């Protein structure tokens, strides 16, 4: 158990953006929101999963919507607590804890807002160990934890509660409601017991985010290589260093899909990498061969500064390093791959587990 203050947030947010694998929303806005909430309400208590009673009633919250929109239409500040209260009302029970559903930029920060505003402890864990674009893509889904009943709330005070036939429907209906709410809304879902949390969440995610963020900062301050530092903490490996030579994007089915082409530099001179993304980075193909693929993590960092680069800021001329990081082993099971493997995202290739650094 420890206390998190606004001073911890910059490292945490940077690391979360790395684990966000290019998606998860803007860490800057997320950090500011959390900072304001912590300044208003005081520090948030962070608990390990094994510090929670099995009977705890945990209500996670998150922001849902288009990252570009959330950078423009900033929150009013009432959305998160609005969604949480709406779900509590429906279930007739107050949350004892809250937790992050994904380790993404914005959604790794929004639980701090929820914890600070609701005055409940935050659990050091998340539902993915990374960021994914759809809200059924959580490890709890594999353990038959239901996303619904769930609630959505917007800045106007509108709220919607949903009971759905499975978590895929939760995604579809919540997405439709979010679009009506102006493409950004807060969502409260996957209410779970302490027992379920221990069984189905990824432990220690927030601490990992903080360690990654700190490693990047300290490497920069100590004039060491921040990419290597981040990779070391994550147990990953640099698969490519290059320059972005083209970015193509289209919007299909509500998601920004696209590809970026990278021309190799240094040891990778003469090679090319193609990065396919749908909000998050999904597949890295080197000279025609898949080298890292979802559900493993593909993290793109600015080669010089180690700053995480989101798929929305991929841009011609940027010098980046691409890291592969092994995902939580539960994603590598047949059920995990069915939920969030290459096939689900429409890729024909077989999933080959990415091997991290040789230990």
């Amino acid at each position, binding site marked *: 158990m420890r206390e998190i203050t606004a001073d911890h947030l910059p490292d945490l947010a940077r690391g979360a953006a790395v684990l966000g694998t290019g998606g998860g929303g*803007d860490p*800057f*806005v997320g950090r*500011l*929101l959390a900072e*304001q909430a912590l300044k208003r309400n005081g520090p948030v208590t962070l608990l390990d999963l094994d510090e929670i009673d099995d009977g705890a009633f945990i209500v996670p919250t998150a922001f849902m919507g*288009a*990252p*570009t*929109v959330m*950078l*423009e*239409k*900033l*929150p*009013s*500040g*009432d959305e998160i607590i609005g969604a949480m209260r709406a779900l509590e009302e429906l279930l007739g029970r107050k949350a004892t804890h809250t937790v992050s559903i994904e380790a993404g930029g914005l959604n790794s920060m929004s639980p701090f807002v929820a914890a600070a505003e609701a005055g409940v402890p935050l659990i050091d864990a998340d539902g993915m160990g990374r960021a994914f674009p759809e809200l059924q893509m959580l490890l709890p889904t594999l353990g038959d934890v239901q996303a619904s009943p769930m609630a959505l709330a917007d*800045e*106007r*005070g509108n709220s919607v509660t949903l009971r759905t036939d499975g978590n895929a429907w939760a995604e579809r209906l919540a997405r439709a409601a979010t*679009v009506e709410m*102006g*493409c950004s809304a807060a969502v409260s879902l996957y209410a779970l017991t302490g027992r379920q949390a221990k069984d189905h969440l990824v432990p220690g995610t927030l601490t990992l985010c903080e360690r990654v963020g700190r490693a990047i900062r300290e490497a*920069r301050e100590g*004039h060491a290589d921040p990419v290597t530092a981040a990779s070391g903490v994550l147990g990953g490996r640099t698969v490519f*260093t290059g*320059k972005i030579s083209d*970015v*193509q*994007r*289209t*919007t299909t089915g*509500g*998601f*920004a899909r*696209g590809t970026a082409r990278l021309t190799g*530099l*240094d040891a990778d001179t003469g090679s090319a990498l193609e990065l396919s993304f749908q909000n998050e980075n999904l597949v890295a193909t080197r000279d025609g061969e898949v080298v890292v693929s979802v559900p493993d993590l593909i993290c793109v960092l*600015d*080669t*010089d*500064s180690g*700053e995480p*680069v989101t798929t*929305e*800021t991929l*841009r*011609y*001329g*940027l*010098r980046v390093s691409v890291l592969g990081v092994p995902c939580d082993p539960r994603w590598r099971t047949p059920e995990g791959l069915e939920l969030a493997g290459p096939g689900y995202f429409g890729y024909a290739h077989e999933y080959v587990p990415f091997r991290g650094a040789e230990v």
Partner: protein
Amino acid sequence: MLRLGIDVGGTNTDAVLIDGDRVLGAVKASTTADVTGGIVTALGDLRQATGFDPAAVQAVMIGTTHFINALVEGERLAQTAAIRFGLPATRALPPLVDWPDRLVTAIGGHSHLCHGGHEYDGSPIADFDEAEFRAVLDRAVAAGATSFALSSVFSPVNAEFETRAAEIIAEQLPGAPVSLSHEIGRMGLLGRENATVVNAALRGLADQVATGLLRTVAEAGINAPVFLSQNDGTLMDVDYARRYPVATFASGPTNSMRGAAFLSRLPSCAVVDIGGTTSDVGILQQGFPREASTDVNVAGVQTNFRMPDVLSIGIGGGSHVLHQASGTAVGPASVGYRLAQEALVFGGTRLTATDVAVAGGRAEVGDVSLVAHLDKSVVDAALRFVDDRLAEVVDRMRASAEPVPVVAVGGGSILVPEDLAGASRVVRPDHFAVANAIGAAIAQVGGEVDRVYSVVPQQRDTVLDEARQEAVDRAVAAGARPGSVEIVDIEEVPLAYLPGNATRIRVKAVGELSLGGPRA
């Protein structure tokens, strides 16, 4: 084409006379607090050195760090009201939310929220509430605001709220400066709004400086058009600079990099530009500065207008040398523009970086005998400190482990050693001390398209071609010589969830200033 390039830095004002690709003369004068005094001196000296006929000058290009310095110092800023249209959204993070307290105080800290702005699909978040806005305006004016920064959610897509509010201000307070976020920054409300507030806070100063510059040039007998250089290395006319002072913010580093490329004929290199108080390091790719990939923090404020990627450290020719038990350090305190009075080699009493460079045999400036008494171990330690810090910065900026050529420019570049760690070689071109002014003089004319297009995937190439052509046409219309215009940057960002694959496309074209063009 005879051009005058002038760079007004914090310490020195440099002036060069260029004819085509030839540098006819270059001089350096001290910058004065009023900006124009240094220019008058520099022009007088340049005339004496080259005997140029003022009437024959065809263009005057000025780069100035004046506006960014005013912001950094928090001085001479207008009392500025930041008014945002976005309620009921955006309330959690009001205008000025992440600003340093010092700057909020300096601009009067007026932050206001009104209903309005747009959703992603163009529908209003709330209707324009004229009574609410007029009440906010009254409050801002009563609190002392004299300059107004207006922002609105999704204004790059629909600027209606900003323009309507600007009309009301124009009617209520004729002539009051109003800065609109959609004209200044990109998508991303906070970064765009912050840039707009900074711009608004500098409007009064920009007006004074622009008027001063025009008068000074005219009094020197020059009747050629006057341009200011922008962050990206292209030119703007003086009236544009009055309205958009932020566009000059990074012109100093940009000009020195462009000047370094011109002088060294190295289109790809690292440029180390050392002035009186700082060293700025940037990377040139194909002759243009590499741009920062993320929002840029200016004086503690997060902004999203385009800036070159530059890393600065507090080591310059005027940096104090401190020798203490804990070790020898150079900077960040500096004698600044008083170098010529305070440094030992010029008969002063302050031990500066320039003094140790002279004592260490790196340069011959001033009177060497005045530093002959310095302890060799202090000199060596100070120079080693400088070398280590410079090598570190170059190392952090270069894109690979591969050593890069380093071009050393600026008056303080005498500090750069011949043998710099990580540099494949150190190039010190002729006229290195006035690279800034040369960069200003060779600045080009730009044209830009920044719009939301509907991009059907099969027609991407057609749409991009259209945007490219329009950017080229605009550069030509702005005074670029047809045939010299090239596309230097393309950015495509789809606005997720918008119907019809709406994509924001931004294309920038740059060409040579044309002799016979509309503005030249």
